[in-house]
């Protein structure tokens, strides 16, 4: 009667620019030196994780017109560091967040195809759609989009990239030294794409890579984002790591797949999740409280409030009560370059709710931010954490988790050494890699270059906005 046990997928997120890394801890290392990335990746691979994940931001954040200086700032180039990591690992998938607004399909497709070759089939692309003019100031197109076009471009970008990936079928390189035939076909890689955002043609110059195409992730949370994921992504990087929110998101997104002729196992849902481990549950709780206070200084708490209030609140005391003025509802100008500000879609309601919660609990500004910003999904002894993760996955709150430690680069070590063996004992996590590619780890089919591009376009036609595939 009972369902078979789901196998858990686990990944490791090397935290980039962020406010959760406790950079002041004595054991905190560099977040930029390659040795940190190598240590992190080796730990993840030792623990048989599916992949390593990198986020991206293309302009340094500002608040109040100045570069934001309280968080970890700065990160390496995604493609370059992932490719270097391919040299120090053998199995670990390599997932990079690459924006579809500030790039061009030919170049991104080349880079992912190259990463997939150079890692023997371990590349994945988290397609994000940040669109703003603020970030656009770093790019030659001056490139930015109206918000409502971000997914229109993203869809066409992904469709175009897929056409490029599929423009080689995998059998073109003959390299017969005797006959002198290197290529089977002079037209290898030929493509034509005419659409609203891209009108390009020619020949793609990277032969088909081991996975054919990189695994596709999606990370937006809007209605359009969820449809985009349902139509064409292999996995979602979501923000819902609690049981109830996770289940709601899971049901919603998996329910969208049938419209695109897809089955629920073709789209994995993997929330970002933090964790704090202790010898006992009580010790972990105590440690978690400490970590939270380190993550949210008084100054940070005020800045965080400004994301919602969209006003300068520097005159407020972080240990005092919340402001009784209302948020400024105009265009968000105080904090720039942040995805978070878009989370608060109704700032007035958020402010009201926060004031009520703070008053009811006698919380200061800092207390409130610590409580509302608390993203520690898993706190407890290794046994508790292993059981909770397993329960969440079996209860369809997710298909696994992308773990974000608060210490770089050693924050994953204890998880690898203590929690992973318990998950393996439960029979819900691999003890050895069964395959070599990331698709193997995730249980995803390898795409067929000769049929898949057309199938994608058909699916996309349902939701419109896709560039038309002309011929090839």
């Amino acid at each position, binding site marked *: 009667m009972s369902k078979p046990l789901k196998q858990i997928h686990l990944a490791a997120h090397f935290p980039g620019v962020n406010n959760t890394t406790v950079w002041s801890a004595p054991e905190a290392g560099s977040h930029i030196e*390659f040795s940190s990335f190598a240590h992190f990746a080796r730990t993840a691979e030792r623990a048989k994780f599916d992949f390593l994940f990198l986020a991206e931001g293309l302009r340094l954040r500002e608040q109040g017109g100045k570069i934001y200086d309280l968080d970890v700032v700065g990160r390496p180039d995604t493609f*370059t560091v992932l490719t270097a990591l391919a040299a120090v690992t053998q199995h670990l998938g390599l997932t990079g967040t690459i924006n579809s607004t500030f790039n061009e399909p030919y170049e991104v497709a080349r880079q992912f195809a190259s990463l997939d070759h150079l890692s023997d089939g371990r590349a994945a692309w988290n397609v994000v759609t940040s669109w703003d003019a603020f970030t656009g100031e770093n790019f030659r197109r001056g490139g930015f989009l109206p918000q409502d076009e971000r997914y229109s471009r993203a869809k066409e970008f992904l469709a175009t990239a897929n056409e490029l990936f599929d423009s080689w079928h995998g059998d073109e390189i003959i390299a017969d030294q005797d006959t002198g035939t*290197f290529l089977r076909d002079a037209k290898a890689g030929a493509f034509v794409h005419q659409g609203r955002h891209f009108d390009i043609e020619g020949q793609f110059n990277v032969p088909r890579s081991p996975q054919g195409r990189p695994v596709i992730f999606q990370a937006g949370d809007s209605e359009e984002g969820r449809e985009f994921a349902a139509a064409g992504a292999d996995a979602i990087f979501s923000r819902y790591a609690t049981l109830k929110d996770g289940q709601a998101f899971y049901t919603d997104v998996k329910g969208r797949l049938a419209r695109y002729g897809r089955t629920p196992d073709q789209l994995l849902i993997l929330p970002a999740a933090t964790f704090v481990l202790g010898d006992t549950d009580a010790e972990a709780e105590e440690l978690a409280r400490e970590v939270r206070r380190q993550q949210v200084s008084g100054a940070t708490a005020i800045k965080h409030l400004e994301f919602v209030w969209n006003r300068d609140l520097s005159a407020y005391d972080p240990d005092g009560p919340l402001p009784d003025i209302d948020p400024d509802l105009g265009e968000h100008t105080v904090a720039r370059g942040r995805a978070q500000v878009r989370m608060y879609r109704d700032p007035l309601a958020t402010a009201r709710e926060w004031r009520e919660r703070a008053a009811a609990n006698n919380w200061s500004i800092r207390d409130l931010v610590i409580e509302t910003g608390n993203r520690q999904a898993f706190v407890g002894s290794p046994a508790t954490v292993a059981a909770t993760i397993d329960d969440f996955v079996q209860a369809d709150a997710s298909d696994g988790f992308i773990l974000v430690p608060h210490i770089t680069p050693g924050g994953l070590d204890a998880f690898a050494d203590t929690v992973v063996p318990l998950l393996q004992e439960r029979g819900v996590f691999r003890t050895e890699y069964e395959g070599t590619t990331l698709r193997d780890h995730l249980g995803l089919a390898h795409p067929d270059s000769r049929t898949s591009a057309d199938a994608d376009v058909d699916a996309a036609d349902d939701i419109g906005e896709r560039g038309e595939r002309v011929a090839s």
Partner: protein
Amino acid sequence: MSSAPSALPSSAHLHLAVALDGAGWHPSAWREPVARPRELFTAGYWADLVAEAERGLLDFVTFEDGLGLQSSHFIEPDGRTDQVRGRLDAVLVAARVAPLTRHIGLVPTVVATHTEPFHISKAIATLDYVSSGRAGLRVQLTARQNEAAHFGRRTLPRLDAYDSPATQDVVTELFDETADYVEVVRRLWDSWEDDAEIRDVTTGRFVDRDKLHYIDFEGPRFSVKGPSITPRPPQGQPVVSALAHQTVPYRLVARATDIGYVTPHDTDHARAIVAEIRAEQALAGRADQPLHVFGDLVVFLDDDPAAAAARRDRLDALAGEPFTSDARVFTGTPAQLADLLQELWSAGLSGFRLRPAVLGHDLPAITQGLVPELQRRGAFRRAYEADTLRGLLGLTRPPNRYATGAAAANANAAANATA
């Protein structure tokens, strides 16, 4: 202070680099038994080549690249199937071999015409991190219409011949744009001061925002705000290089690079090129800054000169035409090549970028034949003397142009005094 004509970092040794491309620079190279044509798209192939170059103590390797299929035609695709076609992104190939090597410089080709200087700046900075200070870039432009069509953002006129006035106009504009591109990349590398990350627990500040700088570049083709998202790389400024054959590209070399690759056909020609570049350098106001000029040569090397010539003939027969190149083609023994290099060196070049005709054959001939020969003559290093590419090239770590602090002011003053 040194005077303009000797703006060459002085060295008792000549510098040696190798240009990696496919199976080698002869179009039939892939048909040699030592070639591994089915492995051109694997990491192992490139790792082996770079390891061999590092065993030979070479200064650096360059990786060729392009935004379209290789072609034997100067401006269009050629539709051929009998030569190597297709390649991996050069920056990523360099990144893949970086953790496997320790001393050798890694210099991928970057096409400036259709890419974003913001992306490239952080990519090369990251290559510098993953290689602990051994990154460079070789900047290239493209006037090919078919490559422009891969991006669809601009159209370029159809060009007929290399030397026509129309070609010159287009190319001059593309070179100006490329100079802007390099300027943006360099400003972004400096957009973080070296000590911008402060981790000041008392104030809760991770960075000192006064040490992060907007670059505010404005040019006719693009503008870029900055700062970079990647902190200043280990070398401060990774090494910038470009290939140049004529006055316009010499100007780019003189204005924007640390190394120019040139194609002298004899010693007088080398002397004339160096003089022209030094003059351009003076015009650009960079006369007192170190700028290397490397001679490019294609090489067929064998212990018996007749064997080298026979190999070239055999490959030419397979190709159906004699091999020609923009660079001088050398056929002979490592000792004969050593003679030639020393002679050209005396004309004011600081080193050479050799293009092996067949990588599987001529690269080991360089590392195991030419290098020991040059060492016997006291003209090449016997061990790596530095850990960074700038160090190997005798270039100091440049001060940050935006640096504000007292330490920075001192460093800037010292650098100016010794330049």
